[in-house]
C-alpha cells in the first residue's frame, strides 16, 4: 500500500493551502456565517477542487480520493465555511451512470450537493430511518424528514437515503422542492439544516446503499478533523513559543512540552488512520477503516482543540481568539455522525469481535 504523495499531489496541497491562507482568513471565516459564496466560487472555479475525483466523462479531473483528501485536510485547517465536504461526499456516494447531470454540475461548480442521511431522534442508525421513495412516472416521490444535513441551508441538491420497495437507495432532490429549515449551530463555521419531503420529486442516483455513503462521510470527516487538529496544534505551539510566564516562554515548561508531545502523537495517529481509510476506500476494509478513522481522528481533534484553550489560558477563552472556533468544529465533528460508543459497537460488529 502506498502512503506517500506524488509531486502533483504535493503541489495541489501547496496550491490549496496558499490560496486558503490568503483568502479564508479568520475575519472572513467569522463573517461568513457558515457560507462564503465568493470563496466557494473561486475554489470550484479557479481551483476546480469539486471536480477532482469526478470522472472525466462527467467533466471532472478523474483524480482519486487522495486529492480530495488533501483538499479536505486543508479545508479543516482553516475551518472552511464552504460546502466542500458535503459536496464531495455526495458526489462520491452516487453512481455515475445514474447521476451524470448531478456530477457534471458539481464538477463545473454550479451545483452544491450534500448527503441527507440522519433522521430526527434516531441519528445515524440506518435501520431506524423511515424516509421512503415511491415510483412516479419516470422518477420518484419522496416522503420523510432528514436532520443534521451538513450545509443543507445552501445545498442545491440533497442526496437522500430512502427506502423504495424495501430496497434502500440514494435519491437526488432539489432542495428548493423540499421544506428547508436552517439551524444556528454550535460550530458557526458549518451550518446544518432539516429537510422535509412531502411527495417531493426525486431521482434515483445510488444503488450502492446508504452504508457506503455513511462510510464516505466518516472518512471525509476524519481527514478534515486531521486538518482541524493540525492547525489548532500549530496555533498552540506558536502561542507557547511567544507567550512568557515567570519570565520565560511557556514553551520552556516541561509539563506543557510533554502535553504538546502527547497531542502531536495523537495527531500523528489520527493522520495515519484517516489516510488509511482513504487509501482503502475502494476495498472491503473500508467498512471498518472508515468508522475507526472517524472515531480516532475526531477524538484527537477534540483533545487538541480543548487542550489548546487550556494552554492559551485566559485569551483562549475569549470570543476574539480563534481557539474556540476550532474547539466548536472539533466538538461538532465528534458529536455528528455517531458518538464513540455507537461507533465502537458498530466496529465490533463489523470486525466480528
Amino acid at each position: 500500500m502506498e502512503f506517500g504523495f506524488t509531486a502533483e499531489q504535493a503541489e495541489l496541497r501547496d496550491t490549496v493551502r496558499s490560496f486558503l491562507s490568503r483568502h479564508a482568513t479568520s475575519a472572513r471565516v467569522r463573517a461568513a456565517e457558515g457560507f462564503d459564496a465568493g470563496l466557494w466560487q473561486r475554489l470550484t472555479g479557479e481551483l476546480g477542487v469539486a471536480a477532482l475525483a469526478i470522472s472525466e466523462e462527467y467533466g471532472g479531473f478523474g483524480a482519486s480520493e487522495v486529492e480530495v483528501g488533501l483538499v479536505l485536510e486543508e479545508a479543516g485547517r482553516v475551518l472552511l465555511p464552504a460546502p466542500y465536504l458535503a459536496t464531495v461526499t455526495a458526489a462520491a456516494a452516487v453512481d455515475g451512470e445514474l447521476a451524470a447531470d448531478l456530477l457534471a454540475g458539481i464538477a463545473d461548480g454550479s451545483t452544491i450537493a450534500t448527503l441527507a442521511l440522519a433522521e430526527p431522534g434516531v441519528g445515524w442508525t440506518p435501520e431506524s430511518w423511515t424516509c421512503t421513495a415511491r415510483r412516479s412516472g419516470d422518477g420518484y416521490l419522496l416522503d420523510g424528514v432528514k436532520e443534521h444535513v451538513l450545509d443543507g441551508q445552501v445545498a442545491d441538491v440533497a442526496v437522500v437515503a430512502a427506502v423504495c420497495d424495501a430496497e434502500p437507495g440514494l435519491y437526488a432532490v432539489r432542495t428548493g422542492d423540499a421544506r428547508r429549515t436552517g439551524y444556528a449551530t454550535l460550530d458557526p463555521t458549518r451550518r446544518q439544516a432539516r429537510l422535509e419531503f412531502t411527495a417531493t420529486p426525486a431521482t434515483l442516483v445510488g444503488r450502492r446503499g446508504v452504508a457506503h455513503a455513511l462510510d464516505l462521510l466518516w472518512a471525509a470527516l476524519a481527514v478534515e478533523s486531521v486538518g482541524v487538529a493540525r492547525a489548532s496544534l500549530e496555533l498552540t505551539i506558536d502561542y507557547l513559543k511567544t507567550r512568557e510566564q515567570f519570565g520565560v516562554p511557556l514553551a520552556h515548561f516541561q509539563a506543557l512540552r510533554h502535553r504538546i508531545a502527547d497531542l502531536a502523537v495523537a495527531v500523528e495517529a489520527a493522520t495515519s488512520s484517516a489516510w488509511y481509510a482513504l487509501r482503502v476506500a475502494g476495498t472491503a476494509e473500508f467498512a471498518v477503516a472508515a468508522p475507526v478513522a472517524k472515531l480516532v481522528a475526531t477524538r484527537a481533534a477534540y483533545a487538541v482543540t480543548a487542550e489548546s484553550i487550556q494552554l492559551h489560558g485566559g485569551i483562549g477563552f475569549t470570543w476574539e481568539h480563534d481557539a474556540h472556533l476550532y474547539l466548536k468544529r472539533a466538538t461538532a465533528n465528534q458529536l455528528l455522525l455517531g458518538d464513540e460508543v455507537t461507533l465502537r459497537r458498530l466496529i465490533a460488529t463489523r470486525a466480528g469481535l
Partner: protein
Amino acid sequence: MSDADFRATVRDWLATHLTGEFAALAGTGGPGREHENIPLRTAWERELGDAGWIGLGWPQANGGGGASIAQQVIFFEEYARAGGPGRLSHIGEYLLAPTLIAFGTEEQRRRFLPPIAAATEFWCQGYSEPDAGSDLAAVQTRAVRDGDVWRITGQKVWTSLAHIADWCFVLARTDPQAPKHRGLSYLLVPMDQPGVQVRPITQLTGSSEFNEVFFDDAVTAAENIVGQPGDGWRVATGTLAFERGVATLGQQLGFARELDDVIGTARAGGVHDDPVWRDRITDAWIGLQVLRHHALRTLGTPEGDLPGVEASVAKLLWAPWHQQLGELAMAVAGPAATLTGDEFSDIQRLFLFTRADTIYGGSNEIQRNIIADRLLGRVPRG
C-alpha cells in the same frame, strides 16, 4: 437552635421571600449566566442582607451570624433546593470579609463588613493580569504612595462582576526593587472614579461575565491597605484559600443539579438504558460524591488555620470534574447538542463555560505547581 430547626427557618424564609417578582430569578445567574438580570438580583441581595443571611458564618464580633459550619451548609443546601439565583455579594462575603477578619484592622472591618452584609456595597477581585497569567507574583500593576493616597496604574483581567462592583481588592506592586513575592500590597480601591475603567470581555460563549479593569492613576486612601506594604502576597494567598470552605458545598449543590439534568437528558434520549453510558454517568456521580467527601473532610480543619495546598487540591478535584461533566452532558445529548436556538442551551453553556474552570482562579498548572512545591520543594520555574 437545633440544625433541624435552623433548616426549617431557612426553608420557611426562602419559601416566603423567593416569591413575587423574585420568583423569576430562580435558576438564573449561575456560572455562565452571571451577567443576567442584575437589577432584580441586586434587590434580592438586599433582601438576603436585611434578613441577616449575608455573613452568616462570620464571627458575631464582626457583625456576622456566627453560624456553625453545619448551619452554613444547611443554608447552602436550602438555597440551592429553592433555586436561589447566583449571588452578587459572594466576592465580598466569602473572599474579602475573611481576609479582613484575618488580616485587616478593626477600622477596616468596621468600615467594610457592614455594607457587605447589607448588600449595599459589592466587591470584585483584582488579581489576574494579562501578562501575569495565573502567576500572582508576576503582577505588574503598580501602586505608589502619594501623601494620603495610593495611586494605582495597571490592568486586571478575569474580573467578574466588575461592572457592578463598588470596590475592588487589588494586588499591586508597591516595591519594584523587592523580590517578586515581597513587593506586593493588598489595596482596597473604589471603582467609581475616573481612573477606573471596566471593559467586558466577550467570551467564547458570546456572553460577558468577565471584565478587564484598567487602573489609570486611580486613587484610594492611604489607610485602605490590608496588612503592611509588601504583605500582599501573603494576604492574597490567604484569600485564595478562603475561596473553598463552606462555599464549596454550595457549589456542589449546583453541580448536583447539573448532573441531574444530564441524567434527565440521558433518560429522555434513551441513552440511559445503554450500559456503557450508564457506567459513565455513574462514574460522574461517584466523582461528585468524592467532591463532597473531600469537602466534608477538609472542613474539619481547625478554624483560623490558613490552609496552603488544600485549596489547590480542592480546585484540581472540582474543576476537571466539572469540565468533564460538561463533556459528558454534550455526549449524552448527542448530535442535537450541535444545534442551537437563539442562544446556547444549558448543556452547551455548561460545556463551553467549564472550559474556564481549569483556567481562572489559578489554572490547573498553577495548582499543580503549588502542590509540587510543597511535596518536592520549590525550584526555579521554566
